């Protein structure tokens, strides 16, 4: 690469969201199907409707959880508002045996993997630190330390190699690691790129560039477009319109298939926008303009898919009213489940510290149990009133 190439590539493309050869898009914000030389998909009407259904339900879960937090039922919630297409597109590209390593915001991928939304809410409510079996759903527990999971995903992918489960398109397995633009600065993410590249591991690094790391814009994380980072490590990088569910599906599927057939890692940068706050504890009005939001509203992932369905005339009024009904039911179930969610017992904190409990932990559990039992009012619920 010559110095001239470098000069061209260091123009501030990082924040450019204009579609072009560098941004894979199959569905415009207005709902028009466009083609791309390297990516194509052939879906049935049922599958198109299925994507829209997923987008609507995922958004509804997110809105419901945000409301529950505002009502004091969750301690905090990390909303994925605006990122539904990036997560549903990539989530639906995964095969049953593929393993996903999320951050703490991939509720849309959790949905695709069949993880009950109430399990996610349990974490944010403080009822658990991760309430599902990762092996059962091939969806790792949420990782809160930024970027850590990219190493776990890489190790898992190395395990797939050792099992000989790489090479064949039909039977090969792949791993996907989710992380954000902020995380791309972390040492662990870069170490994951190193390990994945030198071992040629079957992994897709899926970066949702939602333009913000809390209040820090992507320009403070990188000088070049993030998908170009991969080149430095020796594997392909591709930027996809993260608000285009069809394009994210197509790009992720190809990357996963490249991984499972032994071609090694790919970095997929899903260019999207965090329409909500970092979490419910955040106040974005302190660092970004409403006008930015307005511009991105025009690129809404649901609106363009809805427009497409209408234009293709593959939906009728019943479809939407049934979907609304399903969304309402889902929201009601989540609400009820959240309000009824039990706190863990105080003594449960001593369980599972180790596979083989130690005498010290057992001793503390027994002493604490005796202590709690000594309260005259039979108060055994621990600290909270």
């Amino acid at each position, binding site marked *: 690469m010559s110095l001239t190439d470098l000069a061209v590539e260091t123009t501030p493309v990082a924040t450019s969201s204009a579609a072009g050869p560098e941004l894979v898009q199959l569905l415009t914000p207005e709902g028009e199907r466009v083609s791309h030389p390297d990516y194509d998909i052939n879906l049935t009407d049922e599958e198109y409707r299925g994507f829209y259904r997923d987008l609507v339900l995922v958004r509804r879960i997110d809105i419901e959880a945000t409301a529950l937090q505002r009502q004091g039922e969750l301690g905090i919630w990390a909303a994925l508002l605006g990122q539904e297409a990036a997560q549903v597109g990539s989530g639906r590209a995964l095969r049953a045996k593929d393993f996903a390593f999320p951050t703490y915001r991939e509720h849309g991928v959790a949905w695709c993997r069949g993880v009950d939304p109430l399990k996610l809410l349990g974490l944010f409510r403080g009822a658990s630190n991760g309430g599902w079996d990762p092996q059962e759903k091939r969806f790792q*527990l949420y990782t809160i330390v930024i970027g850590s999971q990219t190493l*776990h995903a*890489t*190790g898992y992918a190395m395990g797939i190699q*050792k099992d000989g489960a790489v090479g064949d398109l039909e039977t090969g397995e792949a791993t996907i690691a989710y992380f954000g633009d902020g995380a791309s600065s972390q*040492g662990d993410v870069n170490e994951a790129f*190193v*390990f994945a590249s030198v071992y040629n591991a079957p992994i897709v690094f899926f970066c949702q560039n939602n333009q913000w790391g809390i209040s820090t814009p992507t320009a403070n994380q990188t000088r070049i477009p993030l998908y170009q980072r991969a080149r430095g490590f020796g594997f392909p990088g591709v930027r996809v319109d993260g608000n285009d569910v069809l394009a994210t599906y197509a790009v992720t599927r190809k990357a996963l298939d490249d991984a499972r057939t032994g071609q090694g890692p790919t970095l997929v940068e899903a260019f999207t926008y965090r329409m909500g706050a970092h979490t419910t504890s955040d106040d974005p009005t302190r660092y970004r303009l409403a006008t930015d939001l307005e511009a991105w509203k025009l690129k809404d992932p649901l609106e363009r898919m809805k427009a497409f369905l209408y234009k293709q005339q593959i939906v009728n009024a019943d479809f939407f009213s049934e979907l609304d009904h399903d969304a309402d039911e889902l929201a009601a179930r989540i609400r009820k489940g959240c309000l009824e969610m039990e706190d863990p017992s105080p003594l449960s904190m001593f*369980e599972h510290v*180790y596979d083989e409990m130690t005498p010290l932990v057992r001793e503390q559990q027994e002493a604490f149990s005796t202590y709690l039992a000594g309260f005259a009012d039979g108060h055994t619920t621990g600290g909270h009133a």
Partner: protein
Amino acid sequence: MTTLTIAKALNEGLRKTMEEDSKVVIMGEDVGKLGGVFRVTDGLAKDFGDDRVMDTPLAESGIIGTAIGLALRGYRPVCEIQFDGFVYPAYDQIVSQLAKMHARSKGTVKMPITIRIPFGGGIGAVEHHSESPEAYFAHTAGLKVVACASPVDAYFMIQQAINSDDPVIFFEPKRRYWEKADVDVTATPESLWKARVVRPGTDATLVAYGPMVKTCLDAASAAEEDGRSLEVVDLRSLSPLDYETVFASVRKTKRLVVVHEAPSFVGLGTEIAARVQEELYYEMEAPVLRVTGFDTPYPPSRIEEEYLPDLDRVLHVVDRSLGF
């Protein structure tokens, strides 16, 4: 009976686990072709292949982080951190992820990972090659921490640590790597989590682990010439800590001196002192005393023998204990 150095005993123990369980994989810097900078993994890559004995990139956090992923896939990784002072880049993966994964998953995810770390000083090295970081790990719930002090323990403890389904930080006393002893490899080992009385005595108990066990044994031999009978306890397991063995010894001798290279402030000696005094307050003839490194960064190696507890420093403190 075979005569083995600690390094060779570790090598043999590693070989045995590799033979018995195809899911055991060794990973670390220079562990493959070179056989490790201390040759502890010598010959293993040749016999088991580089799929199972991996020369990793130079990235400690990466080594432990990918090991976590391998464990999720059903493997039993044995990671090597080349020197004690280089474990810190991996510290976040160890305490935030490895230690907590089992509890976070309510027991559904197991982390059967062993992290081998040569530790301690006395080898004339430059900075970061002579640290004693065991307290940082013993203080972290979810980790188990052990330290071998002899060839027989090296041979069996490494196998037991690898076969444990809990994450084990396995400290190896690098200044003792070349010390030899006879090892009966057919013997049935005792529990990994038990301390051992390595020399019986009656006047005071010395508790130590890793490189200081030999120092304490030497001190006890010297003390014997002065008519003092010192009992030496090798802790072996730092977390969980075998208090029963320590209590039994101190009940007998009434005096305890803890010896470790690590600095005094908030070192393992503080936990042992607090616990023993809580349990045996009325039975003791002297408070628990400690012989430790100073609360300074490890010094340049030309004066490291001034920093490290040695036979004289141990006996000096034993005198203090006996003087109460």
